[in-house]
């Protein structure tokens, strides 16, 4: 994996992970994740607005081979410290697709990215993408029953 410039344990933590989340709409879901990040002081007050604006202009829904995901994120200027907030959805929530913004995708896992240092972004996204493409890990994460379980699975995977 190469040298890590930042501590993964601070980026992925159970306090920022929601399991079996029931949210009917994309925006309330994004609000929940943003609020959690704000509570823990990872992001600024206007981060949520930036997330919504970005999602409306450049949606982040992705169709994978196993579990559909979304990677909402906003510019580093709205971030205090890097972190990822994750929600495992009880029922799919519709996002627009990144590659075809007029089309919908039912997303089952949302990874909200708050990234402060641009240099670390590439490595982190590369790691996430290998998770998205792993036909075993992603469904395993989806079926996790607790935030601790998700945290553990991700940290184990990313450490190797």
């Amino acid at each position: 994996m190469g040298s890590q410039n930042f501590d993964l344990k601070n980026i992925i933590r159970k306090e920022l992970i929601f399991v079996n989340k029931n949210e009917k709409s994309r925006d309330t879901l994004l609000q929940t994740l943003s609020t959690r990040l704000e509570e823990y002081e990872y992001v600024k007050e206007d981060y949520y607005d930036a997330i919504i604006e970005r999602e409306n202009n450049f949606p982040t829904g992705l169709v994978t081979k196993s579990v559909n995901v979304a990677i909402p994120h906003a510019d580093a200027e709205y971030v205090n410290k890097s972190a990822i907030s994750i929600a495992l959805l009880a029922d799919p929530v519709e996002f627009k697709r990144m590659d075809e913004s007029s089309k919908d995708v039912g997303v089952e896992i949302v990874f909200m990215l708050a990234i402060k240092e641009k240099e670390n972004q590439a490595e982190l996204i590369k790691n996430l993408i290998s998770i998205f493409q792993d036909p075993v890990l992603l469904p395993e994460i989806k079926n996790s029953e607790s935030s601790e379980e998700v945290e553990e699975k991700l940290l184990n995977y990313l450490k190797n």
Partner: protein
Amino acid sequence: MSKKVLVACGTGICTSTTVKNKLADILKEEGHSDLAFDQCKVSEVASKASSFDLVVATTDVPGKVETPIVKGTPFLTGIGVDSTVEEIKKHLGL
């Protein structure tokens, strides 16, 4: 003269870096290393595209663009990578 590829995403940093690196690695493995890559925000593509041979974008591209555009999302999702690489190679004459 080496071919030039412009990789774009919404913010110009996140997914475009990953896609650029993945694509460069794949092409290098096939022996095509004489390529130049640049990154930008998707909103900048219309103004920059004319100096490139190909645009690879992870989102829809606004504006009128003459340069061929190929969707880069397969490098994120793993779906359709082979056909996308073939399309890219075709545009670059590789």
